[in-house]
């Protein structure tokens, strides 16, 4: 049995699911506290040591594990117990195709830092995301509670609607990078391009100071540069898929108590809770990979980094350092995207149900189709 994939899977699981997910529950509490001028979680202590409230995730887990697991009378028992799993598993296995580092050469051996380097990586994530909808729908139905049912219905309508838009908003990116393989997308962004290159191409400028400036004013060739509108629309659509505020109509505390997970307690509620937070990390990792250059360090390509370090320590060691730098860059971008999502979640008011649907079908859908059309025209013109 090959050892490499197992190590990768364990690594991704340890860092993303077991490591980052509990911490961001703490980040969310602290960030909302800062934004609302409160102190936030600081009570859980171990012999008087609180570590900024970082013990709260552990306390939460212990609380959820030891709570009574109630299945309401009249509920469909099997479905009720199954649906938290249907919600949580897709969120976790989506990490398989997200590259957390580049492709490196150690002599003859190639190291590709991704769980599964498949040609249809983005389609895989969409396919898995569409399965995740069942978790909420079935939870709402199986609880035998009218509020849960309404939550499940709202969740199904919202998730189907935004799935369509989510797919369409990234078509522009497929066209730019000409691939669906996430490792190739990240590799394609590990470079820069000349902002004023068009002056040379179409106006014949160049030579002297102007030529030097044209050659040296470069920006990273990230997806967000090619598809700014696509980035905004994709982020909106995936955040709506995640069902958190401002898109939290399936939960809607003020109208339907807690929506689809109203009748869940203990760790089964914890699974819904966890899957929401794991989805935040997935969204952050996915937008980072597609739009923010993935693991790529801006203005410093893989070859450049290895080239700088290798004269001192040799190529092998330099590649190792480069892997660490890339992984740190990737995690920094992921944490930034998590922070951005939390910021949006705590600053925007909730949408009404009809506003969520209007945003999807009347604004995002036409705009994303227009985006595809314009991208196609520009690519035809630019690539001849």
């Amino acid at each position, binding site marked *: 049995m090959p050892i490499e994939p197992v190590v990768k899977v364990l690594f991704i699981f340890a860092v993303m699911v077991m490591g980052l997910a509990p911490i961001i529950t703490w980040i969310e509490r602290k960030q909302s506290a800062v934004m609302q001028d409160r102190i936030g979680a600081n009570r859980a202590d171990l012999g008087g040591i609180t570590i900024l409230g970082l013990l709260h995730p552990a306390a939460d887990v212990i609380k959820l594990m030891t709570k009574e697991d109630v299945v309401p009378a009249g509920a*469909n028992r099997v*479905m009720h117990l199954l649906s938290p799993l249907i919600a949580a598993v897709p969120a976790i296995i989506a990490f398989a195709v997200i590259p957390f580092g580049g492709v490196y050469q150690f002599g003859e051996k190639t190291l590709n830092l991704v769980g599964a380097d*498949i*040609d*249809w990586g983005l*389609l*895989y994530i*969409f*396919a*898995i*995301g*569409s*399965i995740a*909808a*069942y978790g909420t*729908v*079935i939870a709402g*139905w199986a609880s035998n509670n009218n509020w849960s*049912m309404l939550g*499940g*219905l709202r969740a*199904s*309508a919202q*998730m*189907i609607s935004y*799935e*369509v838009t989510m797919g369409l908003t990234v078509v522009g990116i497929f066209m730019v990078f000409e691939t*669906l393989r996430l490792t190739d997308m990240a590799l394609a962004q590990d470079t820069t391009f000349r902002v004023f290159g068009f002056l040379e191409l179409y106006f014949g400028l160049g030579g002297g100071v102007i030529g030097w400036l044209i050659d040296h004013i470069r920006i990273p060739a990230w997806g967000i540069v090619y598809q700014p509108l696509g980035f905004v629309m994709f982020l909106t659509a995936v955040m709506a898929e995640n069902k958190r505020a401002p898109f939290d109509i399936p939960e809607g505390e003020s109208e339907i108590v807690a929506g689809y997970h109203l009748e869940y307690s203990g760790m089964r509620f914890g699974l819904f809770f966890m899957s929401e937070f794991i989805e935040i990390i997935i969204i952050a990792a996915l937008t980072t990979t597609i739009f923010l250059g993935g693991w790529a360090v801006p203005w410093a390509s893989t070859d450049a980094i290895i080239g700088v370090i290798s004269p001192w320590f040799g190529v092998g060691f330099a590649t190792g350092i480069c892997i660490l730098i890339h992984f740190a860059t990737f995690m920094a971008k992921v944490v930034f995207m998590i922070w951005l999502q939390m910021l949006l979640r705590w600053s925007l008011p909730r949408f009404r149900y009809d506003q969520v649907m209007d945003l999807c079908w009347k604004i995002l859908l036409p705009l994303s189709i227009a985006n595809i059309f314009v991208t196609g025209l520009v690519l035809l013109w630019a690539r001849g």
Partner: protein
Amino acid sequence: MSAETILFYVFAILAVVSALGMVLNTRNTVASAMSLVVTMISLGAIYLLLEAYLIAALQIMVYGGAIVVLFLFVVMLLNLATDEFPPGRQRIVKLAVAIAGVAVLAQVLVALDRQPLFAAQPETVPEGFGGYRQVGISLYTDYVLLVEMAGLLLLAAIVGALILAKRKID
């Protein structure tokens, strides 16, 4: 047996069992729909084993995901009772469905007869087979007319549904 053969049998059995579960379960419509999801995902896995990656992804995304969620949506909203159709019409529907089922089965048997199940298959598939590039290129070159016709049909269906829904509201 290779790993692929074992996986094929696992998913094939899963597909058949869950399909039977969908049809034979007459008490619980939602459970039926969920069985259908299992069938769809198993079929997707079998497509994967055939290296038809695009079809596999679309199978799970469109059939396993969106369409059955819509079924569930309708089932939950309407809360269909068993006596929704009058008995006479039920009999006609059952007869029609039985005839259609026999026709499909006959077609499958004829196809199997022409192409034996375990005939010599080519050892390797051509480069890029079943990927989105290959499928996309053939859709937009060889079959572009059919794609456009399907698109037109879907557009007509959408417009028709809108008109029907609007008439009810007005």
